[in-house]
């Protein structure tokens, strides 16, 4: 299976990178852009073939290493490899 882990700063945690991107977009003339948040996407190729177990494994990896849950939240999507 393939697992895609998306890691974002939690709401309420200042994201200066997102803010800078938003300002740059405004400077380029793109109107109507609200808040911009920047995060990370981590793709994992897993030997596991069962989607439920693959998700559980990826979630364990996210809690242990891929995300710092003090400041970040994560979501896992599982798809066929």
């Amino acid at each position, binding site marked *: 299976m393939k697992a895609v882990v998306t890691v974002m700063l939690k709401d309420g*945690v*200042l994201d*200066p*990178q997102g803010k800078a991107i938003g300002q740059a977009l405004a400077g380029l003339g793109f109107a109507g852009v609200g808040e911009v948040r920047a995060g990370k996407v981590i793709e994992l190729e897993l030997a596991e073939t069962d989607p439920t177990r693959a998700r559980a494994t990826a979630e364990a990896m996210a809690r*242990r290493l891929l995300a*710092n849950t*003090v*400041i970040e939240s994560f979501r896992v999507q599982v798809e066929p490899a």
Partner: protein
Amino acid sequence: MKPGIVLFPGINRERDMAIALERAFGHAPRIVWHTETDLGELDLLVLPGGFSYGDYLRCGAMAAQTPVMGAVRAHAERGGYVLGVCNGFQILTEAGLLPGALLRNAGLRFISADCHLRVERTDTAFTAQWQQGAVFRAPMAHGDGNYFADTATLDRLEGENLVAFRYVTARGEVTPEANRNGSARSIAGIFSPNLRVLGLMPHPEDLVDKLLGGEDGAPLFASLAAA
């Protein structure tokens, strides 16, 4: 007290730290590699600054998972002394030995400049040689030094008097301008509840010699050597 320096690939401030420790303790610290798990007779473990594992994923995230950190955790749980500076502080938060996290500097830029720190308490092994409220100069050099913790954690740190140092002006005042990386409540360093673990972002070890512009950071090491 016997000091040791814990070394990870990508760390580059260990020599400065070794000089500061040797001056204060009178003997060279043992260097502990990240794969080691036997810390022997060491009383103080120092995690110096640098860019462990290239700051990949998050600063300190990889180092926090190394074999030596299991030994550092056990040492801390036994009441041993641990000091983390800069990347070392980041590693201690990633390993859960200190609360909170270090975010990207509020202005997004890497800051390489001197700052002033105020000593918030002096009844600890790390700060005994300073006067209460003393202000000292320390170099800082980091891109991710913006201390963050949720409100409940910040309130607990303040309520239990675990803030070690704050960013202040040369006159000791907390102002937004003196807090250049945007840290919550101007926090530059914190203690563990048993006061045996200290993490801070600036580099006292880089100001322990008059030839380099001052000895403002020396009391930290003198305090530890006398503890």
